């Protein structure tokens, strides 16, 4: 398959990622190797192998390379949001503003992960004396940059898979891309071999993930039997021509929900997530909580809204998703309350956030929302996915900073952080407040838009003449209760988010030593904090929402 000029322009971000993968393979192997031309004594440098150059053997090289590739991809896709015209490529890809926006979100999250990994993975230049000591050799080999390359190649593959998934206009292609990203992320979770739990976390995540995927693929095959095609347009036609819900279609969509439910870590498919988050290192855990979750939601929206949306009498999944949402958010918050490991706590908080977004998605499936409200709900979900990259990943970045010196697995490692590093502690506090949905931060705005969507969806249903609260609640549509569930859960979640703030500011620190001076990481944390505030109010939030509105229009 050869891409035309137009097509390659439209797929520029993906091509950049592919180029990044190729470069990441080649660059660390470049050296001063020469080959002797046959029959002569001329030795020609072929650069491949031999003694590696200073630059190419630098342990940070692959990380920098992949971060640059991802940043360029992010920029390119950001610029393409408004100009994307829905070009169809090979019948499986459709370049829309929506998919470009999501590519921007994915690559932004992965670029941040890549930069954080440069500091997180112990990366020291190999010295000859390191290798002499037999006890140290295992550790040293882990620090070699040839191993590091693998991590960044995997990160780029995750980005490529996610980005293509967002572009897909065919269910089969969507699943394949989803698997590309998932497979790479399973390895990433287990990549952290220095700790003993890394491998276990990776294996657990892989096993549960592949069962979920298998279920989803089975669902897809049922849909294929039912419709005869996996193209979204054909599926949408078949769906809207159904008079009543046909079993094959219903079961197919339901089984696919299992696969996507695992990706977004919705209860009860979330059980592997806390182990995976706490077993892997903080940047990867942050990637799982933001990019991977966003991928799951995009896939879910593609299926549920893309073709299986509610229409004349066929309201298939709204109610099921609503129940799932309530269970997810409540379970997540209750479990987070008792977590003593900050990564585990953030994992459960991520489960809770999946619940909020599922609630908004459920309202879309209720069949009550008019088209304006539907747009609003979708905007709320996408806005939440986008700003999560700032404050959820930001919180994991702070944990990365703590992990660099060892630790980061107990709440007590955060004790007295304000005394050790006031700026980082303040940023962490802002991230926590935003996760809790405290106005006027961006986490509040997204949550508020979801609640607003839910209320608007059901606003016509409450009886105005009810003379008490209970009769009024009885007269209103059950989907209204989702809004109440979000509010109550947000109140519940405050306790564990504020607890982090409390221990950072008021407990005695375990060690007085300052945090590691990882400059790039610190800059990222502060920038994330600033944007967490900016996207919550004022013209910046308006700009982002307008961008999302453009993106949603081409969904």
């Amino acid at each position, binding site marked *: 398959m050869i891409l035309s000029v137009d097509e390659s322009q439209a797929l520029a971000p993906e091509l950049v990622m592919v180029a990044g993968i190729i470069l990441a393979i080649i660059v660390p192997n470049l050296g001063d190797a020469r080959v002797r031309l046959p029959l002569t004594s001329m030795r020609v440098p072929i650069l491949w192998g031999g003694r590696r150059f200073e630059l190419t053997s630098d342990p940070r090289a692959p990380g920098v390379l992949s971060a640059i590739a991802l940043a360029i991809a992010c920029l390119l896709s950001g610029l393409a949001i408004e100009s994307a015209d829905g070009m169809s490529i090979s019948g499986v890809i459709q370049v829309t503003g929506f998919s470009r926006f999501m590519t921007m979100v994915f690559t932004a999250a992965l670029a941040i992960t890549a930069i954080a990994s440069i500091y997180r993975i112990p990366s020291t230049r190999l010295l000859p004396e390191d290798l002499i000591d037999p006890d140290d050799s295992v550790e040293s080999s882990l620090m070699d940059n040839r191993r590091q390359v693998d991590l960044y190649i995997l990160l780029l593959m995750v980005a490529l898979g996610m980005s293509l998934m967002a572009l897909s206009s065919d269910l089969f292609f969507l699943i394949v891309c989803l698997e590309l990203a998932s497979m790479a992320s399973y390895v990433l979770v287990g990549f952290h071999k220095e700790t003993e739990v890394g491998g276990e976390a990776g294996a657990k995540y892989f096993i549960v993930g592949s069962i979920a995927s298998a279920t989803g693929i089975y669902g897809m095959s049922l849909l294929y039997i039912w419709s005869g095609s996996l193209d979204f347009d054909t599926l949408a036609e078949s769906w809207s021509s159904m008079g009543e819900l046909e079993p094959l279609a219903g079961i197919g969509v339901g089984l696919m929900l299992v696969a996507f439910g695992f990706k977004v870590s919705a209860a009860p498919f979330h059980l592997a997530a806390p182990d995976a988050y706490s077993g892997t290192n903080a940047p990867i855990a942050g990637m799982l909580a933001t990019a991977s979750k966003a991928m799951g939601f995009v896939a879910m929206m593609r299926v549920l809204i893309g073709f299986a949306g509610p229409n004349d009498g066929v309201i298939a999944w709204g109610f099921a998703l609503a129940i799932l949402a309530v269970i997810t958010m409540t379970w997540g918050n209750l479990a987070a309350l008792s977590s003593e490991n900050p990564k585990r706590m953030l994992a459960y908080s991520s489960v809770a956030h999946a619940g909020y977004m599922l609630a908004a998605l459920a309202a879309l499936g209720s069949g009550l929302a008019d088209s304006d409200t539907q747009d609003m709900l979708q905007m709320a979900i996408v806005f939440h996915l986008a700003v999560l990259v700032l404050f959820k990943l930001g919180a994991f970045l702070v944990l990365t900073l703590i992990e660099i010196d060892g630790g980061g697995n107990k709440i007590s490692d955060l004790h007295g952080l304000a005394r050790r590093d006031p700026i980082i502690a303040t940023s962490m506090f802002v991230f926590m407040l935003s996760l809790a949905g405290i106005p006027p931060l961006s986490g509040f705005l997204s949550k508020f838009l979801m609640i607003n969507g839910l209320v608007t969806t059901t606003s016509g249903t*409450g009886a105005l003449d009810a*003379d008490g609260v209970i009769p009024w609640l009885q007269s209103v549509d059950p989907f209204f209760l989702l809004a109440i569930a979000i509010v109550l859960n947000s109140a519940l979640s405050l306790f564990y988010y504020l607890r982090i703030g409390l221990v950072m500011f008021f407990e005695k620190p375990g060690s007085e030593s300052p945090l590691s001076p990882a400059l790039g990481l610190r800059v990222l944390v502060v920038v994330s904090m600033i944007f967490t505030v900016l996207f919550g109010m*004022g013209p910046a939030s308006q700009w982002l929402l307008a961008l999302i509105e453009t993106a949603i229009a081409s969904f």
Partner: protein
Amino acid sequence: MTFTDPLSIITLVPLLSGLLLLILPNVLPQHISQRMQSSVRNVAIGLSTAVFALTTLIFLGTIGQIDWLSIGMGSFVLETEDPVWLIESIGVTWHLGADALSFPMIWLTTLLIPISMLVQWDVERGHRFHALLLIMEGALVGVFVSLDLFVFYVFWELTLVPMFFLIMIWGGEDRKYASMKFFIYTFTASVLMLVGILVMYFNTADSIFSGSLTGHHFNLVEMTEQARVSGLIASEGLRHLVWLLLLIGFATKMPSVPVHTWLPDAHVQAPTAGSMLLAGVMLKMGAYGFLRVAVAIFPESTLTFVPLLVFLGMASLVYGAVVCLGQTNLKRMVAYSSVSHMGLIFLGIATMQPIGFAGALFMMFAHGIISPLLFAVAGSFKHHYHTLEIGSMRGIAHHSPFLAGHMMLGWMGSLGLPLLAGFVAEVAIMIAFWMTFGWWVLLPAITLIFTALYYLTSMQKMIFESDDPHQGILPDTLHGEDPRDVTWHENVGMFILGALTILFGIMPFIFWDMMSVWSTEFIETYLIHAMNALEAMP
């Protein structure tokens, strides 16, 4: 230019400069930041005095040429005109304004901040303390000036943060418990209030303030107008529910029995400046919000629940007074007397008489100068005598004449001595109570006499009584040292508050006139209509 009108300045300048003063020493190089730390308090007190001067100029009419007596209901001075969007998508605007309900509170806040800084001039880690007080000032003024419920709520919650830190870092031995209790109590209550606000939000009609995405707005002026013309929420049950949610939020802040228990703990543990602001302004936020939001928007519900208000008011008044009788801790006693006085405010509102409203408004102001005086006295007593136990000493007048003098003036003001500020408010509320409830007025009146009795006896013991006129009994905590009198800066602060207590006792009309005009119009505009509607019902 947006954000440069006088009200924005008195809100944002203290807030931002406080933040800056808090952050700068952490990011600047060591030698600069150390030099900066010693000058923070000078900057802070200079700024807050300038803000106070600005507020006074607004009051005198030099800025804005305001005739306070012509400010009726629903119109505000220095009101922001065009929508200044903060979050356009959901309809949040920067909309400020002041009227007779809020302005005395704003003036009081800007006055109390420099005074409380002065009283705790030499506090440890002062560069953080005074910066936090500046943030506190911005947040408190923000609560009173914002006419957008969202911004109001944000400022409302923002006041918690500096106060939490003040108690947690500079508090007494039990500060951790007290600050957590304070935070959890008021925060939980205000989350319930937020739910009420959200229900109101989702019922607002289209207006120029509506959000671009949601089609609703948080503008209080528009909401109040909509409520007056057509009723904000159609369902009566929901209306009552929202009113009750708001009441929980506001009553916890006031605080009223039975949700008052955070207050004594917070007061006893808080540093002096924290106590002064807590009693002086933060408690009034509850009464202010109750009148501004709950009563103005839901007059029918307010009238329906008048018995509840009377009950809460009476319970707070009597319970506060009775518990006061049993207190041996000076600060705890003043704290319970605050609960008692806040009960009077509820009673004043429950009368539904113009004079009762005006009395409640004046009580908010009068208590706002008298109770900080009392807490300043208690703080300085703790500072110089290292104890707060009333029984542990006798005859301090000999050792600390200034302290004893201020203490007497404060107590006299608190028990409602004629010609002091508290008297005006109490009399007005009693008159209104008599007008509405007849002889039931004896109940609060007798309670007030009991309070006076106890104040007088403990004053007599503590300040004057002594077997040996030159010695008295000194508490053990002094370990035989000679007690000192107040320091000059404490003295200046107390003198100002004492002078104001007398000034507003002799010349209450400075604020009283505008308050009574406002109250009359408030009742005519909102409540008469609701009363007629209720009477018309079978």
